[in-house]
């Protein structure tokens, strides 16, 4: 599937292919696995997806971004399966005539992919436990008013 893959994302190759004579600005975002989350040591992640739907939704988000911003190109690939620390979980590339559109569109795409697309992160901690994310970047503890507030410990 074009936007979902279970092997390492070769962003260098994706980026090298991403040339367009009308593009003056190309922005690449790589979402990577940190060795910690909310103060806990992380050993690795595993991603699960409802793959056919996720693939379709990412494709639609890219098309919407292309028409909303003045993009020449847009690409997004998300990993499933195990991803190690510093491994790439998701990559978004946008190319436009000017940099403002390339940055704005890039962020628009990653925000929507993270919030809407049926992909889930399973975090494995150094203490042997694991947890399904919980994606919110929000630092606040007031999780009552939005819908991404769940994490539920997995019974090992």
């Amino acid at each position: 599937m074009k936007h979902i893959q279970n092997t390492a994302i070769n962003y260098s190759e994706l980026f090298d292919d991403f040339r367009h004579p009308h593009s003056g600005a190309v922005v690449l975002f790589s979402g990577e696995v940190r060795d910690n989350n909310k103060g806990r040591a992380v050993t690795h992640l595993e991603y699960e997806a409802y793959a056919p739907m996720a693939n379709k939704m990412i494709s639609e988000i890219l098309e919407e971004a292309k028409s909303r911003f003045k993009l020449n190109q847009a690409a997004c690939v998300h990993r499933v399966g195990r991803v190690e620390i510093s491994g790439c979980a998701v990559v978004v590339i946008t190319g436009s005539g000017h940099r403002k559109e390339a940055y704005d569109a890039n962020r628009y795409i990653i925000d929507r992919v993270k919030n809407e697309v049926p992909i889930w992160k399973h975090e494995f901690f150094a203490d042997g436990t694991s947890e399904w994310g919980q994606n919110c970047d929000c630092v606040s503890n007031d999780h009552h008013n939005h819908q991404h507030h769940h994490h539920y410990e997995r019974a090992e």
Partner: protein
Amino acid sequence: MNRKIVCFAGLKKFFGDETSVEVAPEESYANLLEKLGELNPEAKEVLTSCRIAVNEKFVPLDETIKDQTTLFLIPPSSGG
């Protein structure tokens, strides 16, 4: 009518990879989520933020369950 429900991510802890629920005609997707909550009360909280997909599209929860295909129970996204 017995409906097959495919579960993802943290939901598997409560319902396994898939489960099934008996639904009467005219019942809505919201009714189905309620029944799942009765099946496993521990899942009630997460069910309030789940969406349901049919044919790779999210359905409005207040709609009547209409077709015969499998339902996909979608917990909040946490990709990226």
